[in-house]
């Protein structure tokens, strides 16, 4: 299973901190999240910043990265300042 963690506005707005989903590409995982949380739009999921096992991934190719059993995908809304 993949652990998906949510931080920032996406976590607050959808009242979701963590999900467990099946292995697959990032795109497949995002689709599964949408299936489980239909209120989250595709656009919102595509806007978040992603980390896989604490490594930042960006660019169009990020959606093709394959997530394996035990991997952690972090979805975090952009932040600001303090």
């Amino acid at each position, binding site marked *: 299973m993949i652990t998906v963690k949510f931080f920032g506005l996406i976590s607050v707005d959808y009242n979701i901190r963590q999900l467990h989903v099946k292995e697959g590409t990032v795109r497949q995982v995002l689709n599964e999240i949408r299936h489980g949380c239909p209120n989250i739009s595709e656009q919102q999921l595509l806007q978040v910043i992603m980390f896989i096992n604490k490594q930042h991934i960006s660019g169009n190719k990020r959606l093709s990265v394959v997530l394996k059993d035990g991997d952690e995908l972090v979805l975090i809304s952009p*932040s*600001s300042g*303090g």
Partner: protein
Amino acid sequence: MFGYAGKIAKINLSSGIVVDYPVSDKDREMFLGGKTLAAKIIYDSLQSKVEAFSEENIIVITTSPLTGSTSPCSSRFNVSTISPLTGLLVSSNCGGSFGLHLRRAGYDGLILCGKSQAKVYVDITDQEILIKNAEHLWGKNTSETQQLLGGKNKGKFVIGIAGENMVRYAAVISDERAAGRGGVGAVFGFKNLKGIVASGKESIETFAKEDFKKHNLNWIKKLKSHILTGEQLPKLGTASLVSMMNFRNQLATKNYSRGSYDDFEKINGETLRQDHLIKNKGCVTCPIQCGRVVKAYGKEVKGPEVETLGLLGSNLLNNDLQSILNLNHLCDEYGLDTISFGSSVGFAMELNQKGLWNNGLTFGDCSSLEELVEKVATRQGIGDELAEGTKRISDKYGGSDFAMNVKGLEIAAYEPRAAQGMGLGYATANRGGCHLNGGYLVVLEGLGLDVSGKKARGKAAYAIFFQDLMEVVSSGGTCLFSTYSLLPEILVKNPNNNLVRFINKAIPSFGWLVGFLHNHTGLMSFNIKGILPHPYSIQSVTGFKTTIGSFIKTGERGYNLERIINLRQGLKGSDDTLPKRLTSELQRADDPDSKVKLQGMIKDYYKIRGWDEQGVPTKRKLKKLGLEDYSV
């Protein structure tokens, strides 16, 4: 006169004599208010080096043309003095209501000089200033002192027990807001000054009333609709940053030996909101409301800022959020800066771990921290040594390479080995290791935008631009969050968009342009109200012709004047540095870029600033800023 009450009082605490301090219209136009006007007053008043704890040192409290006006986020006021931590000029900014009440009492500012023999407080009512006995307030915490000083329609600015005991990082508190940095509270304590209370019914005239009102309504609308100020900060507060800082390796952890904390989810903004939030609470006139009221051990207390969560949490390996909330509350009550307190404790823990100081403090064992706050505030046991701050502790016990201060001021919770520009900012800030006075480039380097924090290229110009911008925004009297509309929403909201990714990559390449514009502010003799509303607001309230260019130039003038005061206080260019841990130790062994490449950035920084190789502003630069009569 528009935008000002028109009077600054000079209060001699030794003699009890109060006089008006002359400020000309030209001074107001050149130095505006807040920290910049305070620097002008301190430059003129001190004339040579003074010690923080001496009768010659003065405290200058200044408001600004926008303080307490209808501009958004405009409750800010400033307090400046010579810092007992750094021996340099410190300016500390506060969002409490004291500033607006001081203006209602008929004053733009106060200069407190000399030293009272008795314990006193200053009472200002409708232009009448009285120095009153404060024996009954001594030994009281900050909330009780404020309660004893009067009701809702009064502004209070007081120290707690830490200030009385001259803890070098003692804060001064107004409402629940702190002028936290640099130990201004200790100078209050040295002068036997418990606090100031102000009230009155004076009103301040506005140059273009209708225009000002309309402009401010648009500004508020903009802040409310921006993702950062309309959603992120209201919903999560500044605590929202903890998670992103952790993933970006920018979260001070275990005395800055690391940039991420395994237990960050126990202390982040999301957990704070889910488990402790009662309601939002903001400063007066603020549409953002980033402040929090939270529950800790059954009590309603002020919620912590991100810096506090870092310094009292990850930096000490303290994963008990309830304990952090209570520590934050205790620090406010005793009147302590949470950043310097947390950093001093973290440093002491590492000294203990390395066998350099047997003090009983251990990372992760935070059961004694609440007691330690009291010990520091009352200077009991090891608290007496912790009360001196990291620099003086390292002078005694060693470990200067990992005593996390710059020029004596403890750095904030942003670990700069993953944010080069923030590292440069810490090294060069006039205040010492301050994130805000340093230009806060971390907002570009991963927190707001996605500019690489590993690269040093172009950062010097951006650091200078943002340092000067923050200088003048503070001088104008608004909170720094009011500048977030500068960050185009599309860049913040869509980090994965190809164009946005290209812009983030390209931003460092435009450092030369930012540096060029910074030195040719005349090219920005216009206003873009939707991006930077402040200059037009200043113009509307004061009648001073203000453009983006002249606004930035005022900030640059202030920054250079503060530098001159610091040089007069004995600052050397070689002090523009960081603890060796940040410049020599890799944060991550597998990443050769994970240290601050300071030397090259400093060279660029001096060059763009128009300073010589020793970091002294050149005569040419001073003349350009109208500071030709000011020298070290």
